[in-house]
């Protein structure tokens, strides 16, 4: 299908919106009626047609607006994209991976023409047609990592692998769940995850690291992660927390359906061939509560998950103060009926909401 790109904002007037198509393909992250950390990895080898899992790098209706928002964040704070000196080769690896994947997966939008080391890259939606020399930084307007990720949705962490660990040594981070690349760059896997509660004790990171260290060329993996955001704000950075934090207090029972967003990250992992680094793209999808509630299964389930989530997690994910209001809203969409297994909305088979008047 041809993607109709939205003209929308992720700040100020927050004109971000999901089409019916985008809601249906939203990656609802809960496969059952409760949630706890797990190493929920699977192979990243496509998925149902039209789903966000289908392509190596999903392009959707928010592409152009997200890229415009990223350019604004970088203009305000260039430290959001950094690469330690030894990571330049990995940056070229990533550029190659994205250009090859997008030109193969979306030939109507992107073209890559290679003649030896002379490469021509055409990005039709963004109106880019550049010719450059592969592995020669002087022929691109930015470093290879920044050049290609200014044209790719989601954050990208590029991890060096050495000493049986992964090191956050490069990345572009403008749509993050409240963590700072500038602060965390150079840390190892356990260090940058240090602030996450409960998971260390459960051994989740030890198992996850073992899995990630063994991801091989040609065998990418993926998982979903989630958090909550008031307003469709992509740049929930610690850097700007003193500016956006206050927005969490603007929720009211009247506006919560429209303002409160579930934010889901599609995290993928690819081995980079020339550098042996690992790239960890983190693509954020936002969906308002009221849009989620159009899928009866998601309404029932989200209420149960949020209700039963351990307090530490609600605190870490930053919505503990709003949990009661969220539950008041969500409970109206939970009639107690059972839900089917898996994340898909099952809008054709799941019964519609059935609440008696006095409930």
């Amino acid at each position: 299908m041809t993607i109709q790109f939205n003209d929308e904002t992720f700040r100020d007037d927050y004109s971000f919106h999901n089409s019916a198509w985008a809601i249906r393909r939203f990656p609802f992250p809960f496969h059952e009626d409760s949630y706890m950390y797990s190493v929920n990895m699977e192979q990243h080898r496509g998925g149902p047609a039209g789903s966000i899992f289908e392509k190596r790098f999903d392009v959707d209706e928010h592409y152009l607006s997200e890229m415009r928002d990223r350019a604004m964040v970088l203009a305000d704070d260039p430290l959001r994209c950094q690469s330690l000196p030894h990571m330049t080769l990995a940056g070229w690896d990533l550029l190659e991976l994205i250009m090859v994947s997008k030109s193969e997966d979306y030939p109507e939008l992107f073209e890559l023409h290679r003649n030896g080391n002379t490469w021509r890259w055409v990005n039709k939606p963004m109106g880019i047609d550049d010719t450059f020399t592969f592995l020669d930084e002087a022929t691109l307007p930015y470093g290879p990592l920044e050049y290609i990720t200014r044209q790719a949705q989601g954050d990208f962490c590029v991890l060096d692998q050495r000493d049986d660990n992964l090191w956050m040594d490069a990345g572009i981070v403008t749509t993050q769940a409240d963590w700072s690349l500038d602060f965390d760059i150079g840390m190892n896997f356990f260090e940058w995850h240090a602030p996450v509660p409960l998971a260390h004790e459960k051994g989740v990171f030890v198992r996850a690291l073992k899995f990630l260290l063994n991801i091989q060329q040609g065998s990418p993996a993926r998982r979903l992660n989630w958090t909550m955001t008031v307003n469709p704000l992509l740049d929930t950075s610690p850097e700007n927390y003193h500016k956006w934090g206050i927005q969490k207090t603007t929720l009211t029972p009247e506006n919560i359906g429209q303002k409160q967003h579930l934010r889901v990250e599609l995290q993928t992992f690819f081995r980079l061939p020339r550098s042996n680094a690992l790239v960890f793209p983190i693509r954020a999808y936002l969906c308002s509560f009221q849009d989620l509630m159009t899928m009866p299964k998601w309404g029932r389930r989200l209420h149960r998950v949020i209700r039963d989530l351990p307090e530490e997690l609600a605190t870490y994910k930053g919505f503990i103060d709003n949990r009661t209001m969220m539950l008041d809203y969500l409970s109206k969409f939970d009639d107690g009926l059972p839900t089917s297994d898996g994340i898909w909305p099952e809008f054709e088979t799941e019964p519609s909401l059935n609440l008696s008047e006095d409930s």
Partner: protein
Amino acid sequence: MSGAQKIAVTVTEIVPLNELVTRFKFKPTDGSLLPTFSGGAHTVVEMKDGAITRLNPYSLMSDPMDQTAYTISVRRDDVGRGGSLFLHRNVKVGDQMTISYPVNLFSLDLRAKKHLFLAGGIGITPFIAQIKQLERTNGRWELHYATRSVALGSYVDELTTKHPNEAHIYYDDQEQRIDLKNLLDGQPLGTHVYVCGPKGMIDWVRKTAADEGWPRESIHYEEFLAPKSGKPFEVKLAISNKVIQVGEDESLLEAMEREGVDAPYLCRGGACGQCETDVIDYRGNFIHRDHWLEDADHKSGKKIMPCVSRFEGKTLVLDR
């Protein structure tokens, strides 16, 4: 499925380099391009040797930038179980084979201010790819390569011709030895040492460097062990609920695969840790040969690396 993704290739060139070492070139059978790789990566070559499928790792030594072909160099091991003999004797130009995607367990530390390579014999192969990678990216390196004799010095001419200042050769039969202590002394901060060769050489380099105050993280090594033959033994696999026999000329890992038990692996040479298996019960002695487990693990009787290690005794029950 265990192991890395597979690639169907055709053997396009076989070049005997000397009495022991032969070079093989592989191109994709379907005419497509091969994946690029990083210097130090290996591929696992699948060999149908009668009833036995052998999977042996070999370092890639072609230019990592060259996607048209991979090359490996194989040293004939006359007392081994036959993987290298099979390649030397049975494989012909035009044969179709299966190899794995590149896997790198011996990658360069790209932060290094200088890369110091120490090679023993056929251990030269990963360095040939790493040198090509560093030449392309203006890395600083130096090679010290010990080989038995002029006649057996694979790639010596190529290295000394192209890199007269960086490549240093030592011939055992001329009583030439790497003066390691002296070589390590005075290297600039940020130098990383890489050693690939026989176990004795790796141990010598690691110990000497530690004695000279070098950090553990600055020393990198790789030695793929070929599984060794041994007495047959019986194993009970608790999860699969099978009792299997490990033959004289096969490894425990190969025996499990023969019986249809999916066991994870990458290197098949005792280095990567993928096939680490818990021991549930045993009466007898382990013959541990891997580089992966710590000494304490070897002594504990609780773990075994089925790719290279064996067992002698009455009972062995594994968590597979």
